[in-house]
């Protein structure tokens, strides 16, 4: 694992992967069709609150469920309308624009087959593509690549997987070679991590708590606009820590796009963004979740612009391990839940719609009377993308990529 800020040479690739697998520059069938598809998977670690991101403003129980934490069309700022029923968090104008032009789709009330509430196990299931946690030797995206490799033209510089971050995300790990790019910007310990540590210190070590608190205060001071800067009176002005997070998201996602756009670059990539575990003070049309969604929206913009001409053949799937409780908890946040959303963006999408078999929000309609009930299996969405975008065979998807998923039919019509 090295700090690599240039496209790796073949030798570095050999060193990095141990054994060189080679497969066609682009999936064989896709090539026959004259296409060169790209797929990027973004994992939001920590469990995204799907209801806080994409609100069912048309559901009669929505306001009573979330109260003044509910996104509404006449809120401050107002949620961005998607259709007659759903509206998008106002932090995401880029996603809204893409949606309106048919280049983004949202799948709601979606979940993996995992029904417990452990982040680590949930992420294992999400990324391994298996039904049960604990198997972490390879991810579904890597196995999909292996399937595409057979029968392809041998080109050692051909397509390969790209992992972003100093640890390759599990979803793309496996026997197919992976090149890794580590962002030069270090992601700072998130505000969430800092406040959890502060909470831990307050219960175990008051002296360390005092020091950490002072540091957090200092960081907020040094990040504040200096005297020479134009002062902003924007009430939604992001707190200073989030500026670094925004820069990191945009840098990492934008670089991934630059690699994927290259004629001889990788064709699939994966990356993870942390910080979504909003137990305390989640916010809605402003605050913590709003800031993170804004950073993600900036990452979408970076991908679109850096993909260049390849944007038209690009699909980005943004997924998370599970959702959060439908109701707000006692600390103005949400706890671990089940159903959530997945974002799909890219020039290659048949978008402009929210795909949802809406379960409703009445207590009896919630999963275990607490979470948004999942009505769509995330594997159906991913299988649909792999089949129709990368041309992975359906049988391979059911046996090798998502083992034991023969009953979960690929969702059709996602790709233009």
């Amino acid at each position, binding site marked *: 694992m090295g700090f690599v800020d240039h496209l790796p040479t073949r030798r570095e690739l050999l060193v990095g992967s141990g054994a060189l697998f080679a497969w066609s520059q682009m999936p064989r069938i896709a090539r026959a069709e004259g296409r060169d598809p790209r797929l990027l998977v973004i994992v939001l670690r920590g469990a995204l609150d799907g209801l806080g991101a994409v609100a069912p403003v048309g559901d009669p129980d929505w306001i009573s469920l979330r109260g003044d934490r509910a996104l509404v069309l006449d809120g401050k700022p107002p949620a961005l309308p998607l259709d007659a029923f759903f509206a998008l968090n106002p932090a995401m104008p880029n996603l809204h624009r893409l949606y309106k032009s048919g280049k983004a789709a949202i799948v709601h009330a979606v979940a993996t087959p995992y029904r417990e509430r452990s982040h680590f196990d949930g992420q294992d299931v999400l990324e391994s593509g298996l039904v049960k946690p604990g198997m972490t030797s390879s991810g579904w995206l890597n196995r999909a690549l292996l399937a595409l490799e057979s029968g392809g033209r041998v080109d050692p510089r051909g397509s390969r997987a790209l992992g972003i971050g100093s640890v390759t995300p599990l979803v793309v790990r496996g026997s197919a070679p992976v090149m890794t790019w580590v962002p030069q910007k270090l992601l700072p310990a998130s505000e969430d991590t800092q406040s959890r540590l502060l909470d831990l210190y307050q219960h175990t070590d008051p002296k*360390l708590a005092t020091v950490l608190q002072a540091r957090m205060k200092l960081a907020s001071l040094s990040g504040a606009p200096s005297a020479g800067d134009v002062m902003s009176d924007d009430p939604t002005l992001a707190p200073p820590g989030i500026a670094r997070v925004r820069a990191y998201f945009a840098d990492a996602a934008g670089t991934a796009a630059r690699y994927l756009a290259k004629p001889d670059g990788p064709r699939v990539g994966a990356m993870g963004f*942390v910080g*979504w575990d909003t137990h305390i003070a989640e916010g809605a049309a402003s605050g913590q979740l709003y800031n993170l969604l804004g950073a993600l929206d900036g990452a979408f913009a970076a991908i679109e612009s850096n993909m260049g001409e390849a944007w038209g053949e690009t699909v980005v799937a943004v997924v998370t391990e599970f959702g959060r409780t439908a109701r707000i908890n006692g600390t103005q946040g949400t706890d671990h839940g089940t159903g959530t959303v997945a974002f799909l963006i890219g020039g290659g999408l048949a978008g402009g719609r929210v795909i949802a078999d809406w379960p409703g929000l009445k207590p009896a309609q919630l999963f275990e009377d607490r979470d948004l009930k999942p009505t769509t299996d995330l594997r159906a969405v991913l299988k649909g993308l792999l089949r129709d975008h990368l041309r992975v065979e359906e049988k391979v998807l059911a046996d090798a990529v998502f083992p034991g998923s023969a009953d979960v039919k690929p969702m059709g019509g996602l790709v233009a």
Partner: protein
Amino acid sequence: MSNSAKAEAVLALHRFGMGPRPGSIAALGSDPRAALIAELDRPLVLAAAASLPSSAKAYRTVADANARRTARAKQAQQQAKKQQMASAPTAADDQAQPQLQTQGQAGQEKDAAEMAAKQAADAIPDPGRPMYLQEAKLRTEAALAADIGFAERLVWFWSNHFCISANRIQSMSGAYEREAVRANALGRFVDLLLAVEGHPAMLFYLDNLGSMGANSTAGINRSSGLNENFAREIMELHTLGVRSGYTQDDVISFANVMTGWTLVPPGADPQHGGEFTFNPRLHEPGGQTVLGKRYEQEDVEQGRAVLRDLAAHPATATHVATKLARHFVADEPPPALVEQMAKVFRDTEGDLKQVATLMVSSDEAWRAPPSKLKRPGEWVVGMVRATGITQVDPVLYTGGQQLLGEPLWRPPAPKGYPDDEASWIDGVGRRLDVANNFAERITGMADPQAIIEDVLASQIAPEVKQAVGRAESRQQALALLFMSADFQRR
């Protein structure tokens, strides 16, 4: 193993060792005190360092490179000047040129010659840096691989007590620790003292190489040059301790005693350059009185005799015992423990293994609450050990140490790095950056729950277990675990 035995094993590893690593709690068995003592009986050599150069060889290598660099630079400068002369305009052309332009041209020529000299010099890299990194790697990996790490902790303690600075002598810093400190850390204090004060790295660091007595041959010829620094630091920092009763006259007399303790010039002798030598031409002739005792010896034995007496001085026993107890047990160590350790020091003529044994056999050393804040180096090594990693990238490791304010072998002053909470606690915020970064790098290979259960035998605060269990990602869980008081304190 009972829970209390496990708890004692974890305390033993944090307080006296390098921190728990996979299998270390089981290795401590039911009697952690005995296991700590048993580790002191094992040889303390760095087998992997057999191929590394001695400090003298390292110093010669650097001196050779410096000499070659100077020569190349000179050559390149001369050549550049020659070329400029050859291509200089002829006299006929020159007449047509305004005077001003010729002056400008001369300036450019000088710049070009200097640049050529610099380029030629830069072409020969400094061999000191790779030596430093290799030594840092082996030393750190010894700490990572040790079952308990009590002996390694003692090496680190004595290395800091008798510190030098790699800022001045990078090439020798690791070899110094191996040759002078590691070789004597479990022996008698007097042998350790004689080894470090007679080591070229220390003589260089504390400015004794050119110190000469006013009445020595060299002193008369060059009208004097006594340097008190070495003698003062030996008494103040290495042996008696500050304000322990010695006077300015004692310092001057002792400094005279130590004149002549120097090294063979590295360029003068390809076999022995850089080694210790006693140079009688620098040595102040005649007897000296130090702490009321007369030393009439005429040569290197005079200094050795004073050092032996300083090692045996009761103030040294107290000073050393206090520092040891402060480092291992508490910023304000229990006076009874310090007195017991000082007594063993006095009774055994400074047998350091006996002093360390007494410390871990004493209930006071175990009863103290875990209030010590680990120094950055201990903390980083403890964090890495918990993951089972045994190899380090020395560039990353030494870079991290620098970031945390404890760059390896580069203390800001001869006093070494401080050993109290107040000096380090403000840096805890920076540790979070390091922990977060490390957690991200290893999150694919380290499972926080497995570390808690297998490495720590679940001997960790319930609040930490809960925070780790609720973390949003493995990375966050690892960062919280490494930042917890259980990992910071001992």
